[in-house]
């Protein structure tokens, strides 16, 4: 069939539409792979190049799968690998479109690609895009079944079916029972994304600074806290091995109660990060359901976070933890060797000053006075990173300062720990909430003072106070941006883009709130709410209205049916029946087994006088009845002939 020639083209188009949103999330070679083979398929289609045979296709598939397994698999069955495999197949599929089976299977695979893109990119835009790609794929499915029809007709049919399906889809969506939690997970779904790791070493946070991705959004109920207290607590790191800080043996125990003067209540909408802890405003007072607060005030979940999570917490910035407990030992741990100069310095301070408070003040003063600078691109550090930083480069990012400060404190025998999290946030006035981005990532130190308990010390704030008061975007971002963007003219444009970005973000948040977060709880509220809130009066109204509507529908249906029946009766057949009835009136009945020609022959034998009229009517009837398209004139003349026919 001639139209079948379009099929490689259509398949490439449909696969391209489906995989398009994923291309940015895929490694470059996968995108290149797809584009190469699609390009070949298109050229083979246009220029009649040879189609690769089965062996070539199988070899290519093997190569592709192996490459995916090596580069994306990393020995485990990850989501990234699943998408990689799908993409490799998507690249090769347009090369085999010869059989209907191949084409249909390719389209089913396209549906899989679409749902994968939904799982990975969860936002409003992809939701809208999904309808377009489903439409294209479905139109293609219809077209492959009926290639002789016009593509536009098939597209229209697919659109009609989709529009008719939408109400049903909404109903399913609202009423399909939802479960809580996840049954099993594929590891490594977030492998491609950087984010917080559960350890801190030089460079682990500053690499996040160039990431514009949102970490979480916060909706405060009532007043916002002031910018200086927007410390978002994440993990507490206890163990230092001379280079990096890790969580170590977490002191497990009772959950201390804390109190604060100013209490803020807020909703956190946390983007998935694949880890088991949540962020809160320092310090959290309450724990959301299904979470637990550890002794060091890290909020832990039971499952790694694999989807956007909303939770409500109360926090108080002025709350304090007063108990050291068994943590004292761990909080003074230091490696035996390494960083001798810093250790010596702290020990000298302790012996000179005596008290912990004095050492703390001395350390802060030291950072303030010795020409430390805050930079995004610190020089590489050697074997003793703390020494190298403090007495060598003297420039670093928050992790350098925090690490060095905590090291000094521990060396002086003061319990200290590192807290990693975020600092600050951007206010989105369109939705009145706070956006905290990856580049707000921050690390600070908590030290334990006998009288005050655990207090927060942020050495970065000592060196670069504007980082805290103004937020990172203004204090440092210019360093990471090309110069021409910083210049005033384009700065205004950047401002405009940021505004547009905020607006879009606010729309997306709204979408997330009522769509993405629709869960078992909301379902329960919606469904029970619908029935419980109905008063008897409303029920009566609804029954009455429903009855009237149903009655009208039935009446309309009956009338419609009647009209349809009338339409379905063929006027030509009716006229012919009249002709037969007229002949029957004079004793020439038509047997049920007699066709019009037989009957005409018999009738003309009996009525030789009417032979001409009978044959004319019969022939015209046959012509009209079995003609593709009737013309009105011959139909009218046929009616007239039957009317005039009088055998009496």
């Amino acid at each position, binding site marked *: 069939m001639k139209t079948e020639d379009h099929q490689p083209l259509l398949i490439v188009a449909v696969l391209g539409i489906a995989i398009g949103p994923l291309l940015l999330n895929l490694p470059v070679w996968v995108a290149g792979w797809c584009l190469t083979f699609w390009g070949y398929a298109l050229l083979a289609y246009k220029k009649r190049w040879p189609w690769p045979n089965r062996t070539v296709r199988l070899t290519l598939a093997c190569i592709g799968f192996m490459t995916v397994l090596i580069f994306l698999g990393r020995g485990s069955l990850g989501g990234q690998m699943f998408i990689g495999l799908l993409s490799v197949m998507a690249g090769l599929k347009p090369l085999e479109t010869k059989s209907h089976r191949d084409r249909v299977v390719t389209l089913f695979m396209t549906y899989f690609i679409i749902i994968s893109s939904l799982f990975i990119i969860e936002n409003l835009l992809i939701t809208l895009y999904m309808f377009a790609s489903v439409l294209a794929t479905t139109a293609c499915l219809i077209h492959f079944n009926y290639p002789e029809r016009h593509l536009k007709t098939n597209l229209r049919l697919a659109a009609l079916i989709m529009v008719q399906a939408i109400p049903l889809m909404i109903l399913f*969506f609202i009423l399909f029972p939802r479960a809580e939690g996840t049954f099993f997970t594929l590891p490594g779904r977030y492998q491609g994304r950087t984010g917080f790791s559960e350890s801190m070493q030089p460079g682990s946070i500053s690499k996040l600074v160039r990431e514009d991705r949102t970490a979480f959004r916060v909706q405060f109920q009532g007043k916002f806290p002031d910018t200086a207290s927007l410390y978002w607590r994440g993990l507490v790191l206890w163990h230092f091995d001379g280079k990096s800080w890790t969580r170590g043996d977490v002191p497990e125990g009772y959950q201390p109660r804390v109190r604060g003067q100013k209490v803020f209540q807020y909703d956190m909408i946390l983007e998935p990060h694949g880890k088991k802890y949540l962020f809160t405003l320092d310090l959290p007072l309450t724990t959301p359901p299904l979470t637990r607060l550890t002794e060091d005030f890290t909020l832990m979940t039971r499952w790694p976070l694999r989807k956007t999570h909303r939770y409500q917490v109360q926090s108080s910035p002025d709350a304090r933890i007063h108990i050291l407990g068994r943590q004292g030992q761990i909080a003074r741990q230091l490696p035996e060797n390494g960083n001798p100069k810093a250790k010596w310095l702290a020990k000298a301070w302790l012996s000179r000053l005596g008290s912990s408070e004095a050492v703390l003040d001395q350390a802060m003063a030291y950072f303030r006075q010795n020409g430390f600078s805050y930079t995004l691109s610190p020089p590489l550090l050697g074997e003793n990173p703390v020494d190298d930083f403090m007495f060598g480069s003297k420039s670093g990012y928050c992790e350098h300062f925090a690490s060095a400060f905590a090291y000094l404190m521990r060396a002086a025998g003061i319990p200290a720990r590192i807290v990693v999290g975020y600092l600050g946030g951007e206010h989105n006035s369109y939705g009145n909430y706070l956006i905290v981005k990856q580049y707000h990532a921050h690390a600070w130190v908590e030290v334990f003072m006998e009288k005050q308990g655990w207090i927060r010390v942020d050495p970065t704030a000592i060196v670069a106070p504007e980082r805290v008061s103004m937020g990172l975007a203004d204090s440092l971002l210019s360093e990471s941006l090309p110069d021409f963007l910083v210049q005033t003219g384009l700065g205004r444009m950047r401002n405009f883009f940021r505004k547009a970005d905020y607006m879009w973000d606010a729309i997306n948040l709204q979408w997330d709130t009522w769509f993405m977060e629709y869960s078992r709880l909301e379902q329960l509220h919606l469904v029970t709410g619908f029935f419980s809130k109905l008063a008897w009066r409303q029920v009566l109204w609804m029954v009455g209205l429903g009855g009237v509507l149903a009655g009208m529908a039935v009446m309309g249906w009956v009338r419609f049916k009647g009209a349809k029946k009338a339409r379905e009766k063929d006027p030509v057949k009716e006229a012919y029946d009249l002709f037969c009835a007229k002949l029957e009136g004079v004793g020439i009945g038509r047997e049920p087994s007699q066709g019009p020609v037989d009957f005409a022959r018999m009738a003309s034998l009996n009525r030789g006088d009417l032979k001409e009229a009978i044959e004319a009517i019969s022939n015209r009837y046959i012509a009209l009845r079995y003609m593709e398209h009737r013309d009105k004139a011959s139909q009218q003349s046929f009616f007239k002939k039957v009317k005039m026919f009088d055998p009496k």
Partner: protein
Amino acid sequence: MPSNSVVKTKSYFRSPNKNGRIRWFPTRYGWLFVLVLLSMLLGSINYNNNLGFLFTFLLGSMLLVSLVHSYGNIRGIGVDEIDALPVFEGQDAIFELNLHVLPRQRMAVRFRLDNSQETLVDTAPGSCVRVAVVLPAGKRGRISPRELHITSEYPFGLFCFHASYQLFADCLVYPKPVPVQKLSLQDLLQAHSADGVAQESVEDFKGLRTFQNGDATQHIFWKAFSKGQGLMVKEFMGSASPCLCVSWEKIRVENVEKKLSVLCGMVLKANGMKLEYGIRLPGHLIAPGKGAQHKHVCLRALALF
């Protein structure tokens, strides 16, 4: 073609709406699609992903809606008449179905009689549609397909909708003709060889003439001979043109079917030569005649022998 219509077998539906229950089942792609949907649903449930749910329900709803379209596409299709022209053994019988006039367009509907090949039809709204379904004819006699199957996988090819109707249709199958090179006049050319024929043509009696060599002995007017008037022969109207009788006894072939095939070939040959011919079978006799209708009568006698 009026000459064809003469010999067509006509059949009619008996209450198509009563036995035309529409059944539906998934095709193999349908099963696969259901599997795909289920795995998507499981994935969405597992990850509790609302976008996944939305997508799965969209596809599922589209499938359900397409079922309604499929049902509407096949519902109400019926056949007014079925015509079939006689065929020879070994040929394909073509049954022509005259469909009801349908107000709406119907897409990709397949028609099948028993195990015949399928015929794919699209209908335009409000038009009369004839569908030709081909059925291999098989042995001489009648073929009467018992069931008409109407199926459609419109629009996605995932579900097959099917309606079947009991039929009372048949098509005459003539014996397979054996080509006859020439009719051997010695054996066959006999003027009114059969008594029955002679009696039928009594009215056509024209007169008497003297016997000539070659005249049939049956037509000798023995009464005149006994009266000593010499050999007189009865002369009949129309016997001036050559008239032949294709006779069962004259064929020296043992096998009945082969005999019928030879007779069939002779009938066709005679008809092709525009001769007047009759046919004589054991217990059955067809008076000489001419034309398409006559040929059909003769061949039908052979077919149903």
